[in-house]
């Protein structure tokens, strides 16, 4: 084709251009309609091969390397070699470690999959993990394991522990359950208490299998130990007097006794033990003030220490009388309550089920737990056969009725006509990382949803606004409950209509700490579908928000 140095006819250019166009169409076609006989690996191979062909066609004919001075080719080739070398080095430097560390890659995959919920199903194990609210075992598995009543079936007899302490991973996880037995005090609290101390929840061996039965109320407890543990671990926040700091750390003096007397759900007695073992996270109301913080788990304390310090909060503060018929919590009860693998958030649900906590005798009060309407607390209801375990919570024989078991008592709320399981699942996968599982957000960083979503819902246009936020995101400064938030809520348009509506309903009616709005009418997928495709920007959604007449 060469007609002298610059001679080439137009013909060759036309041919090359046609080939380039054809290749581009072929690339498009095999991606858009992958041939059945071609695996994705081969598709990838052909894509790369075809683009290389295009690459060299352009260089060779359009850029005249074909018949130009070889010095140009040399320069460009050396640049190509260095460039490709840099490229390959870069890719291998970062991708090779990923390949040999499949765990990290799996995390990436899982998150990727989470984002792709609209395109495919989440891996089963990820779903299972979401369903357990972060606990280590899927619900189905938990359901299959012996309830505390059956513990003696799987537990080594206590005799075995006196000499040869059988080292089991579960024991290590569950914390030094034997500290109390060996009499080693543990006055130093760890800086950060683990939120989930007992991942693999084969119950740690209770120190006493059965003999907690029938006994009379015994109000005596180790007051010295209780006061000491309290001073070392609790007083920093709840104050030595037990008065707490209003709005920041809830009071214990008086409130401890109120909780002790609560009879709903698992019973206040058991609840107190669970709070110590598993912590408590989320919004609670005590004496009219709202507290939205995190009580760490204290499972690393010994059974005797935990029992003593609970008794101290119930009956040990100066000027606070022990409840009538006070029966001191005993270390055996603490031991028997270990290993349930509850999360701090699940404890919040347990709290909500306590029902009306008797108000303090003196102060005027506001029942701290919310009414039963919201009790179908988030996730647990759907999967758990809630009727088993005829919750005999008041007795102290088998203290550990599990969270789900008690929820049979909670009837459906006013209008639960949305997919609660889906809402909880989507929320956990997509929202909880920032807004927290409780919907409490992080003050000043991520706005709360519990309560706030309902406020938005209540104003005119709020219902549509909520959908817009999910579909188009929200960017810019907003103020919620006195805190300013200047961040970016991503758009979640890649979720399906059903997912968007379910998760919105979850924020409106699914949080244990916030009741559904009056006359709540669940958002339906069709409403979401109707608001798609409007091409709003996240800044425009901010304008929509500003147009709302928020209280």
């Amino acid at each position, binding site marked *: 084709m060469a007609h002298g140095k610059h001679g080439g006819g137009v013909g060759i*250019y036309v041919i090359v251009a046609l080939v*380039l166009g054809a290749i*581009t169409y072929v690339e498009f076609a095999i*991606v858009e309609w992958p041939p059945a006989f071609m695996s994705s690996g081969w598709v990838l191979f052909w894509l790369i091969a075809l683009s290389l062909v*295009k690459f060299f066609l352009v260089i060779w004919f359009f850029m005249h390397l074909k018949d130009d001075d070889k010095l140009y080719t040399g320069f460009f080739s050396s640049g190509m070699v260095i460039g490709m070398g840099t490229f390959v080095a870069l890719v291998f430097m970062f991708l090779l470690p990923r390949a040999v560390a499949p765990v990290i890659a799996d995390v990436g995959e899982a998150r990727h999959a989470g984002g792709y919920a609209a395109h495919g199903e989440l891996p089963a194990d990820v779903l299972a993990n979401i369903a357990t609210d972060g606990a280590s075992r899927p619900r189905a598995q938990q359901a299959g394991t012996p309830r505390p009543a059956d513990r003696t079936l799987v537990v080594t007899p206590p005799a075995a522990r006196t000499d040869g302490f059988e080292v089991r991973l579960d024991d290590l996880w569950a914390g030094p359950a034997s500290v109390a037995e060996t009499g080693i005090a543990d006055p130093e609290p760890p800086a950060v208490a683990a939120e989930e101390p007992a991942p693999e929840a084969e119950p740690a061996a209770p120190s006493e299998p059965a003999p907690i039965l029938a006994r009379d109320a015994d109000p005596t407890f180790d007051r010295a130990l209780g006061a000491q543990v309290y001073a070392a671990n609790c007083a920093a926040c709840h104050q030595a007097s037990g008065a707490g700091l209003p709005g920041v750390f809830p009071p214990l003096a008086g409130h401890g006794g109120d909780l002790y007397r609560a009879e709903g759900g698992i019973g206040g007695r058991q609840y107190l033990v669970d709070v110590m073992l598993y912590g408590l996270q989320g919004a609670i109301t005590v004496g009219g003030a709202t507290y939205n913080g995190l009580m760490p788990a204290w499972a690393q304390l010994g059974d005797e220490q935990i029992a003593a310090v609970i008794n101290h909060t119930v009956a040990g503060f100066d000027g606070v009388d022990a409840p009538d018929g006070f029966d001191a919590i005993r270390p055996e009860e603490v031991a028997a309550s270990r290993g349930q693998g509850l999360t701090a958030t699940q404890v919040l649900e347990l709290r909500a089920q306590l029902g009306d906590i008797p108000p303090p005798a003196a102060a005027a009060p506001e029942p701290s737990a919310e009414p039963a309407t919201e009790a179908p607390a988030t996730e647990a209801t759907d999967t758990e056969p809630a009727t088993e375990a005829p919750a005999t919570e008041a007795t102290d024989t088998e203290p550990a009725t599990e969270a789900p078991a008690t929820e049979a008592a909670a009837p459906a709320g006013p209008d639960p006509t949305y997919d609660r399981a889906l809402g909880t699942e989507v929320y956990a996968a997509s929202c909880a990382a920032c807004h927290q599982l409780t919907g409490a957000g992080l003050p000043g960083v991520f706005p709360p949803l519990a309560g706030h979503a309902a406020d938005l819902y209540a104003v005119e246009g709020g219902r549509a606004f909520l959908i817009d936020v999910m579909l188009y995101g929200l960017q810019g400064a907003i103020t919620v409950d006195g805190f300013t938030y200047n961040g*970016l809520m991503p758009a979640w348009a890649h979720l399906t209509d059903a997912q968007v509506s379910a998760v919105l309903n979850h924020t409106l009616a699914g949080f244990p700490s916030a009741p559904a709005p009056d006359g709540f009418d669940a958002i339906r997928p069709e409403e979401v579908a109707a608001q798609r495709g409007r091409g709003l920007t996240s800044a425009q959604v901010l304008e929509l928000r500003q147009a709302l007449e928020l209280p």
Partner: protein
Amino acid sequence: MSAAPATAVVPGMESGHYRSSKLPDIKLLMWVFLASDVMFFGSLIGTYLVYKDRSLVGPYPADVLDIPLTTVSTFVLLMSSFLMVLALHALRQDQIRQFRLWTFGVAFFGAIFLGFQVYEFAHFVDLGLTLQGNLFGTTFYVLTGTHGVHVTIGVIWLLSILIHSYVKPWTSKDEVYLEVAGLYWHFVDIVWIVIFTVVYLVEFV
């Protein structure tokens, strides 16, 4: 681009007595620049691949990328390269009218490509993909945005040539200047060939 024919019409060809090579300096310069640009884009594409699938939040590539649309814009860019060689061919034949027509065509097609990109970016931002929103947004916008800047420079360059060809009528003696602009343009084209495959097509395999 000096218009003085004696010294600079074809640099290095007539006044090459102080050079060891008879090749035009400006062309050599362009090839060296392109070699360095290969490294530039190589690292950007490498960065994109390293962070591919590592975004923690959406939108993810498969949520926003539109293959049919980008195929069309890719085709437009490829055809602009075709017009580029036609323009150079016409100039070498001293067919100045065709040379101007094709040169305008290249700039016009380049502008169409940029229009596609502007539309695409605006659409993606509406979908929530921002420069700082997630890793995909960061690497995608930096890579395709850098390419878009290259295209923009090319369009401006070609329009300048077009205007200059009226101010000081071009002849076949000026071909090296158009050829250098063409080299740049074709290079931008081949970079897009790679981006189209690596960023767009591979995502849907």
